[in-house]
């Protein structure tokens, strides 16, 4: 096993060290930081916006670039959280809890520097763990059959819904179903029958995943800024950060060191779980740190605590690297962003799953090894460039919004060269906007859409193998195990709230 790992690492290093790939990691981190920093735009949007750029590239180069964009965007989001209390996405909300008060107290530079160090450490620790766990899981997963894959996909889709939070499970499940419905549009690959094409030639190949990703995220985020009259970016005073203010003292490093270690480990484990992702990673790391803190230190949480800032930053970066484990090993995305990356992998002609480990080792190991480089680049880029990056936040929305719309529409048009796609994007954007206003999440829809085709194929194949019987769901031990995990994940929130309510009742009685 170790030989294989060392060979893989060498393959990864040789892939990453190609000058083109080094440039792409740098470019990805830079663009990710830039896009992720814009209020309202998160890593899903950043990755979706960059996919058209990768279409002319080698798959390994494209994935290296997208991975850089992903963790760059996570870091970029924390900058807008700290400076203007406008998290780019949910994963950086916890960062704003202590980052923004620190900035208000006159330490924006220190807050950004702590966030940069925590992100770097979280990302690096997580990549080391990814390097060990991913090949192990991938080698186990080679024994998986269609039945197991089908069960795994159901687990992934259920997990995304289960982590949706209070009152959100059913809505997320419904969005998954809606995504699966959209995936059935086009020609059925097995029978060649047209489904839901309404006689349109443009729909024969189905709906382009990039089109759906752009419409449901980039376009709706931009329209949402307009609808909600979000002018947070207009209110920033970019001159408030100087290089000197980025200094972090030795004592402060000692204070945040153990926090970063703990949060990184927790973040990685959470990131590996399908559906959990960086948001849960950051909140759980924050919660854990708050619980571990002494009462006097706990008082400072929410008022500008350095530990309260470092924990979610290390947690979300570690979780975002951890979410590559199910993507690279099983071909099952654990989050909305990795779902978009899975779509990109399919578009490159690579079959995601454990076979990628042996059939496309340059992609598998290239992505992992490039993360080391990406984390170093992020630190080098972000520390000196923070004062300049922050000025981007001052771009008025009346220039920013049309540009986001333009890049989103162009991103799709320059790939398909079909003006019908622009109109379809607008249609999906309006529908997605309406659903968002009704508080329905979009990431499960995208996940359902991307996994829809694979799920149907695997179910069909499993039924063929098992003589058209669904008995594989309970007869095959591995499939049964995955199904039990699905049931646990689905009912876990209910069990948790039941236990919590019982505890409250007991407390009231006593």
């Amino acid at each position, binding site marked *: 096993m170790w030989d294989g790992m060392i060979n893989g690492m060498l393959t990864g290093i040789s892939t990453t060290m190609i000058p083109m790939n080094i440039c792409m990691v740098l470019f990805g981190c830079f663009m990710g930081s830039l896009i992720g920093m814009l209020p309202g735009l998160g890593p899903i949007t950043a990755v979706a916006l960059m996919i058209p750029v990768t279409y002319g590239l080698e798959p390994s180069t494209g994935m290296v670039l997208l991975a850089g964009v992903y963790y760059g965007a996570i870091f970029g989001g924390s900058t807008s959280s700290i400076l203007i209390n406008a998290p780019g996405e949910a994963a950086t909300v916890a960062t704003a809890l202590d980052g923004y008060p620190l900035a208000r107290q006159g330490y924006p530079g220190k807050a950004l520097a702590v966030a940069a160090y925590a992100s770097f450490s979280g990302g690096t620790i997580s990549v080391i763990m990814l390097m060990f766990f991913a090949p192990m899981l991938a080698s186990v997963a080679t024994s998986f059959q269609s039945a197991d894959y089908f069960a795994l996909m159901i687990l992934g889709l259920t997990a995304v819904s289960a982590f949706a939070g209070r009152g959100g499970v059913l*809505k997320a*499940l419904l969005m998954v179903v809606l995504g699966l419905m959209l995936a059935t549009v086009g020609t059925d690959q097995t029978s060649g029958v047209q489904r*839901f094409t309404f006689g349109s030639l443009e729909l024969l190949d189905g709906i382009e995943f990039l089109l759906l990703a752009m419409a449901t995220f980039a376009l709706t985020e931009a329209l949402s800024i307009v*609808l909600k009259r979000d002018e947070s970016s207009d209110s920033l005073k970019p001159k408030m950060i100087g290089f000197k203010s980025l200094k972090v003292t030795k004592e402060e490093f000692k204070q945040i060191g153990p926090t970063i270690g703990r949060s990184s480990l927790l973040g990685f484990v959470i990131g590996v779980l399908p559906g959990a992702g960086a948001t849960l990673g950051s909140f759980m790391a924050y919660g854990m740190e708050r619980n571990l803190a002494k009462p006097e230190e706990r008082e400072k949480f929410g008022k500008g605590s350095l530990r309260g800032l470092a924990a979610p930053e290390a947690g979300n970066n570690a979780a975002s690297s951890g979410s590559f484990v199910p993507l690279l090993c099983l071909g099952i995305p654990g989050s909305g962003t990795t779902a978009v990356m899975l779509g990109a992998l399919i578009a490159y002609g690579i079959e995601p799953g454990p076979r990628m480990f042996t059939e496309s080792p340059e992609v598998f190991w290239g992505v992992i090894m490039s993360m080391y480089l990406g984390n170093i680049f992020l630190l080098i880029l972000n520390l000196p460039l923070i004062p300049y990056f922050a000025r981007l936040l001052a771009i008025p929305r009346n220039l920013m919004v049309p540009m986001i719309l333009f890049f989103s529409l162009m991103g799709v048009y320059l790939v398909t060269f079909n003006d*019908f796609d622009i109109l379809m994007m607008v249609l999906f954007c309006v529908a997605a906007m309406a659903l968002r206003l009704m508080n329905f999440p979009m990431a499960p829809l995208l996940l359902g859409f991307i996994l829809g085709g694979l799920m149907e194929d695997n179910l069909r194949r499993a039924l063929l193998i098992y003589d058209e019987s669904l008995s594989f769901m309970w007869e095959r031990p591995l499939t049964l195990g995955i199904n039990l995990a699905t049931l646990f994940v689905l009912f876990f929130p209910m069990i948790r709230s039941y236990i919590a309510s019982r505890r409250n009742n007991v407390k009231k009685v006593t």
Partner: protein
Amino acid sequence: MAREKVGALVIMLFSIAYGSMALKIPLSFLAQNEFFTSRTMPYALAVLGIVIALMILVMPTADPEGKRSLKEETRGMDWKTAILLVIGMIIYGLVMKWLGFMISSILFLLGGFYVLGERRIKRMLLASIPLVILLWFVMSSLLGVYIAPGEIFYILGVI
């Protein structure tokens, strides 16, 4: 009505329409005797969609932000600007083939800036024209992607 219930109702109607359209998916004679056909997955999804939407409709609302209605949620929103931008995108999609990438993109950006309240002509031009030309240059000259000129140039005899 709470906003999530409105959404569930819409998706339930969509699921019913989807399920009824699934009935019309053509099947060959041989496929009709198969256990898993092109209709199986759509049927299952339609039923799932209806069941989950019904559950949301019937069960009590658990919206962490309170039982907000759609009207409350959308109060004070800038609908006019958003609708104008949507119309702009539709027009952009319709004229792209005729005016070509460069002219339609510049017009779209200028229109977008104007709708959002920008009135400084110089700033608008500087933010749109160089950006579109740069993108066109990167795509056509550096990446070798052929971007067809607009039909209008052929009609006018320019090309």
